[in-house]
Structures are given as structure tokens and as C-alpha cells.
């Protein structure tokens, strides 16, 4: 099951450039929810970078890092949305 490692490098570099473009929305968003949208995209793309690094170097420990990063990204977005004044829904 061999693949050219150059392809994995290309995917990693493209994901890095894309996440920098998402950080533009995080810095320039007019409302706080726009910044959260950009942050959600950055979490997804960094997760992809971690999984590809784990597959490329054949290190299984990076997958644990990726799983913890996914959980912490979700908890972080939930906490920031709660902090911004959304009191859990319902009147």
C-alpha cells in the first residue's frame, strides 16, 4: 500500500494555506459569531493536518492528539457561544 509521500505533503500545505485564509475571517469578522465560524473551520482543517501527519509518519500517537483536539475545539466553541449570551435556549 504505497503512495507517493509528495502527495501527502501537497495536501498538508494546501490545508495550511486554507487555514490561514480562515484566520482572515477570524480577525476581520464584524460580529463575534463570524469569528466563531472562522474558528470552526480552523479546527476542522488542523484536525485534517494532524491525521495526515499521523498517517505519513506512521505514528499512532498523533491520532490521540487529533481526537483530543477535536473534543477541545467543540468544547471551546460551545463555551464561547455560551459566554456571548446564549443562555441555553428556551424562554
Amino acid at each position: 500500500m504505497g503512495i507517493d509521500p509528495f502527495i501527502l505533503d501537497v495536501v498538508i500545505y494546501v490545508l495550511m494555506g486554507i487555514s490561514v485564509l480562515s484566520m482572515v475571517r477570524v480577525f476581520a469578522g464584524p460580529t463575534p459569531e463570524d469569528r466563531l465560524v472562522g474558528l470552526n473551520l480552523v479546527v476542522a482543517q488542523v484536525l485534517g493536518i494532524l491525521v495526515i501527519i499521523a498517517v505519513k509518519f506512521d505514528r499512532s500517537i498523533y491520532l490521540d492528539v487529533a481526537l483530543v483536539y477535536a473534543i477541545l475545539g467543540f468544547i471551546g466553541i460551545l463555551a464561547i457561544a455560551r459566554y456571548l449570551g446564549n443562555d441555553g435556549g428556551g424562554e
Partner: protein
Amino acid sequence: MILVVYIFFGMGIFFGILGNVGVLKFPDIYTRLQASSKCAVTSLISILLACMFLKGLSPMTGKILVITVFFLVSSPVASHIIARGAWERGTTPWRRRKSQ
């Protein structure tokens, strides 16, 4: 099998670029959220499926499957939380201005 890996990596890059263009160009929080949530999920699931096909049947595939299922559950929930917070703070949706 290698062809499937190439196709899924290409789909991941394609949908990732489309989602970022949508987030940068759309005019409103709700439209940006629509571009962001769908394209982030599709891009990341494609990349993780490519990694699973690349590793074959091994313990790493199980871990990647766990990450896939967790992200497939948590990302729409996060998008829904952001949209509901914006709606309850009184953000009105964007409408096309009438050309008089």
C-alpha cells in the same frame, strides 16, 4: 485502491477551498455558516476516508473511524449552537436590496 485515495484527497482539497471562498465572500452570518458547516464536514470526512483507505485494515483505521464519527456528530451541533446564539441576539438575516 490508490485511485480511491487520490479521488478522496482531491475532493477534500476542493471542498475545503470552496468553503473558505464562501466564508470570505458571503455577506451575512447565516450564509457564511451555511458555507462553513457543509464544506468543513465534507472536506474533513473526505480526507479522513482517504487516510482510512490508505492505511488498510489496521489499528490506526479504528482510531481514524472514531475521530470521523465524533466529528460527524459534533460539527453540526457546533454550527447549530452558533446559529441559535446569533438568532437569539437579534441578528436579522441578509436580504437582497431591491433595485428601484
